[in-house]
């Protein structure tokens, strides 16, 4: 039996698998590697959409680092956004997942309610929130007024606009929540039983069982949230257009404007590479330091690896 199979697979030495994966290989060259190399070349040029291209070595990079305050401002805004959004996204998803993991009736209904917004993204999401944030007629400020709070001008006040974008982004946390919920449900019940029998309080169970057992998922969602936070563009583009007074002028928006508004393709390409390097560095750092707190099931835990 096995002989027959070996012979038949020997007749076609390894061509079949390549045929099957050929769409991805082709796509990788056409739509990923090719464009990336092209973009790297562009980033070394003064590259207007029309007109003369000029090779200028690393001038784009030195210009942005030393002579472009807007580069640093937009990077700062993106960093601020990520700094608030990423932890909140994970904490809130974790909270919802824990609530859904309590065995009560109708969990699937609540699960749907939390997941629903994540299937709406882009323009529809922005339009929904724009009306909610309205200073005079918005639902949010009405809700706040019932609590006796005079709601701010969410989209018109530079102190509040970034928070408005953070809240609207958090609305779509369904995917993150689902990953954490799956993680919670895969934790063996025996661990909690044993802890309860030994009289370990609930908060300690969370700290010493739930969080360590969930750590691979927490790490995964941390990295994906970080990547999406840095790419944040659509919401800001439509909800606030970067304003008021550039308070929501994200890094990605500056790249977009450089490319498609100021038609400075080379500079935009250079900026996009800076973004890629930042994301790469942060991800590698997180992965590197995660070894200390991420616990993988089935991994031999030899003592004293500190």
């Amino acid at each position: 039996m096995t002989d027959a199979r070996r012979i038949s697979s020997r007749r076609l030495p390894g061509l079949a698998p390549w045929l099957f994966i050929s769409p991805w290989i082709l796509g990788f060259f056409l739509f990923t590697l090719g464009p990336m190399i092209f973009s790297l070349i562009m980033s070394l040029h003064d590259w207007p959409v029309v007109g003369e291209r000029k090779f200028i070595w690393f001038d784009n990079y030195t210009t942005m680092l030393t002579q472009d305050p807007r580069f640093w401002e937009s990077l700062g805004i993106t960093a601020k956004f990520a700094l608030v959004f990423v932890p909140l996204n994970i904490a809130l998803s974790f909270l919802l997942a824990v609530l859904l993991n309590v065995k009560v009736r109708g969990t699937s209904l609540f699960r749907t309610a939390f997941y629903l917004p994540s299937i709406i993204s882009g323009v529809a999401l922005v339009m929904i929130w724009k009306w909610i944030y309205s200073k005079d007629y918005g639902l949010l400020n009405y809700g706040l007024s019932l609590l006796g709070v005079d709601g701010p001008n969410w989209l018109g006040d530079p102190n509040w606009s970034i928070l408005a974008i953070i809240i609207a982004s958090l609305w779509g946390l369904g995917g993150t929540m689902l990953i954490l919920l799956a993680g919670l449900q895969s934790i063996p019940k025996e661990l909690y039983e044993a802890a309860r029998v030994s009289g370990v309080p609930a908060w300690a169970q969370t700290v010493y069982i739930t969080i360590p057992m969930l750590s691979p998922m927490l790490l995964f969602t941390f990295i994906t949230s970080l990547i999406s936070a840095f790419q944040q563009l659509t919401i800001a583009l439509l909800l606030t257009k970067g304003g008021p007074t550039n308070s929501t002028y994200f890094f990605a928006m500056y790249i977009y404007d450089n490319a498609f508004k100021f038609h400075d393709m080379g500079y935009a390409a250079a900026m996009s590479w800076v973004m890629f390097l930042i994301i790469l560095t942060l991800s590698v750092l997180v992965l590197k330091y995660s070894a200390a707190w991420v616990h993988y099931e089935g991994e031999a835990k030899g003592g004293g690896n500190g």
Partner: protein
Amino acid sequence: MVRTLTYGALIFLSALFVAPFVWTLLTAVKSEAELVTWPPVFWPEDWRWENFAESWAKQPFGTYLWNSTTVVVLSTIGQVFSSSLVAFGFARFRFRGRDPLFVLLLATMMIPWDVKMIPLYMEFNLLGWINTLKPLIVPAWFGEAFFIFLLRQYIMTIPMEIDEAARMDGANAWQLYWRIHLPLMVPGLVLVGTFHFMNAWNDYLGPLIFLNDQTKYTLPLGLGLFQGRHDVDNIAIAAITAILCLPPLVLFFFVQRYIMDNALGSSVKG
């Protein structure tokens, strides 16, 4: 006690998550006057369903719908087909360089779209594809890392004995894929199709960059256009937003089981 608290929290939080949808729908059927009163009117006096038809007529939304449908249908077919092919290749063959290639595939998920956006624009410009729907359709026919990963996981759960039996009966690699594995991974294909459908349907940046002419616009671009106007037509925005949300919501209710099973299924065995 814990149960009551949990219920209270779940009800309160889910109301927060659903409220924006309800509010948008209610706004869509209000009259102009009800829109600008304080405190806000929750329940419209008379439900103006004609708002939908009137808003639809304010822009060539029929054309946008046709464009959106073209993009979504053609790219979803391509995505499901190509991703399943590649996933099968990675899951069921041993070949030199397979594992490093797969790691490379996973690594591409980390590349921000912003890095590719500019050169892709230049590339499509060179091909004469700008202001056509091709940039929104063709790349989907070359598979996407996340979907390939997802389908590969599916195929890996299917016992090798099935392949061996089919090989015994003289099936070649293509027949093995087409006749045996494709039917077996239907739940995975539904999932990939759904996720891709939603991404393509909601996509704003892609059409924004690759399309110029209003006759080529997709629905999200048309909706975005309301924004740029001086007198912001809130009822039209709400009505079109509600319409735009409808297909993903309907689809979600049909495939909800697959999404939840995929995410949570592995833990049911306990």
